């Protein structure tokens, strides 16, 4: 692969990237000061409300109180956000299905359908109480508040210890939807060869145990949240996306590449079967991110939420443009799947600091994310790590990049913050990667992890489900 075969054109095109960077400078130069203020104010307001809540005799009394309406607004926004995050499951299903072959379509759809089902149930059973074990475990590494859902019987229990801006149920719903996404990320990377039952066992372990434990370190007010300069991860570049990405990396290392992907030291692409599906998926994910990041403000605070939505959208747009330009320069033509990955990269990258960045910061973070994702795809291919949908490039690489960017740009930038970010990245990465690696190895030893070569060639749809995804359309499966 001669990637710089036409140096002059490349140079011209590369300079276009820099021209764009230059153009965004005016955007970037703006101060994000009001945002910072807003953050402080919001935090206070939430704290106050929390203090107030238990004062009411019953729910009716609370409804009569002046704070009830604002509480209702906040809760409404959080519910809308939860709905949008839920919808991301469809986004993942479409992206992963679109970027894989039609003979494995039913299998991938099934996984992406049953994972949120399992995720929501196990999160209700244990995950939620592992991730948010309560005040007793503040600063710790592990805590558990018992099985099942439930809360104190009086009105004060309407909200949990972790929020005062919306109800306990809303809290659970929003967090449960987040949990499901982490496992879904893995499913794309291991697609087209992993045994269904084995993967489902992994999913249960991953979403019930691994995700909540590292989540607790930060969002559950564990040790990472109590560093001198606390680790910062606004909506989960690390806690959700990198976690999924580490799981994906462990999976593709142990599984090995799909048959036919690498031959005589060359990469033979196994083409995804439907770009429309992949595109639908990316738009649905972008929409979902309005809730993923917008809801992570944990209130409807106008200044903060709207800033977050703007930084999120700008980073997504810049990611799309960055990946397009990079693939245009490097590959001579703009690759559609790279543009799509670029948007996701921008979204993942901004997620850690979406509330701390100016418009210009977010453009730069997204643009770099979009460039990174293209090189990351090359890089993993070089390493003969086969990730059909680019999950590691999107979620792991950009999850790390976005988390680091919090120390490099925006309100929190600074050396101490960089150190804290690195601590969080490494700690969560090491834990999750080892957890996933061991889980996969144990599952492999006990029940096997990969389908037979015959089944892989014929397709997992027939092998695992006895289904065909498109029985009306004749098709021979060449690979």
């Amino acid at each position, binding site marked *: 692969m001669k990637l710089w075969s036409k140096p002059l054109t490349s140079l011209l095109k590369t300079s276009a990237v820099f021209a764009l960077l230059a153009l965004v400078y005016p955007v970037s130069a703006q101060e994000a000061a009001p945002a910072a203020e807003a953050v402080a104010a919001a935090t206070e307001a939430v704290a106050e409300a929390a203090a107030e809540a238990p004062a009411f005799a019953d729910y009716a009394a609370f409804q009569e109180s002046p704070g009830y309406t604002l509480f209702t607004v906040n809760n409404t926004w959080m519910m809308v956000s939860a709905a949008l995050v839920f919808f991301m499951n469809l986004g993942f299903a479409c992206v992963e299905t679109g970027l894989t072959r039609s003979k494995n379509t039913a299998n991938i759809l099934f996984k992406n359908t049953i994972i949120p089902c399992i995720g929501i149930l196990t999160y209700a059973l244990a995950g939620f109480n592992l991730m948010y074990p309560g005040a007793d475990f503040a600063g710790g590494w592990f805590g558990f508040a018992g099985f099942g859902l439930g809360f104190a019987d009086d009105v004060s229990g309407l909200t949990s210890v972790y929020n005062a801006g919306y109800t306990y149920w809303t809290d659970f719903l929003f967090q449960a939807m987040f949990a499901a996404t982490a496992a879904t990320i893995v499913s794309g990377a291991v697609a087209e060869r992993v045994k269904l039952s084995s993967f489902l066992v992994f999913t249960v372990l991953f979403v019930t145990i691994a995700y909540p434990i590292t989540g607790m370190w930060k969002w559950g007010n564990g040790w990472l949240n109590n560093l001198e300069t606390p680790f910062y991860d606004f909506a989960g570049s690390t806690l959700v996306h990198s976690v999924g990405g580490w799981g994906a990396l462990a999976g593709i290392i142990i599984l090995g590449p799909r048959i036919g992907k690498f031959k005589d030291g060359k990469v033979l692409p196994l083409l995804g079967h439907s770009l429309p599906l992949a595109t639908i998926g990316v738009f649905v994910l972008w929409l979902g991110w309005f809730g993923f990041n917008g809801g992570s403000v944990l209130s409807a605070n106008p200044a903060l939420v709207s800033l977050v939505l703007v930084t999120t959208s700008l980073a997504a747009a810049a990611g799309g443009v960055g990946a397009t330009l990079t693939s245009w320069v490097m*590959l001579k033509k703009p690759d559609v*799947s790279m543009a799509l990955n670029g948007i996701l990269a921008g979204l993942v990258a901004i997620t850690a600091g979406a509330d701390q960045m100016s418009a210009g910061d977010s453009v730069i973070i997204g643009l770099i994310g979009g460039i990174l994702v293209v090189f990351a795809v090359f890089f993993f291919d070089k390493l003969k790590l086969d990730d059909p949908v680019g999950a590691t490039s999107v979620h792991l690489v950009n999850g790390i990049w976005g988390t680091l960017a919090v120390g490099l740009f925006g309100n929190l930038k600074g050396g101490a913050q960089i150190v804290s970010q690195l601590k969080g990245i490494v700690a969560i990465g090491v834990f999750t990667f080892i957890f996933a690696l061991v889980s996969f190895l144990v599952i492999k030893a006990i029940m096997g992890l990969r389908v037979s070569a015959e089944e892989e060639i014929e397709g997992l749809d027939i092998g695992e489900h006895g289904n065909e995804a498109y029985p009306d359309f004749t098709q021979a499966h060449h690979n």
Partner: protein
Amino acid sequence: MKLIIAIIKPFKLEEVKEALSSIGIEGMTVTEVKGFGRQKGHTEIYRGSEYTVDFLPKVKVEIVVTDELVAKTVDAIVKAAKTGKIGDGKVFVLALEEAVRIRTDERGDAAV
């Protein structure tokens, strides 16, 4: 009777069909195929990896004609399908021993 098999460029199908109609041929069967020949495929790139598309979309037209029509048919196809560029395709002629019209059980030339 002969079975004439023509491999042509897909966008020429309409013209070939009209050319055949104009010489009175009113039956044919068409299949979408992939062709490999001197016309080389393109090198494309998917997610950063080059690959060659060797097989190009072609259309196969099968026509059964009575012996006296063979030359005329072949000529009509060649004329209509020609662009002069590489990849225009081939015409093959095979001997046919029997033809049957299912609807009427007619055999031989009457069935064509």
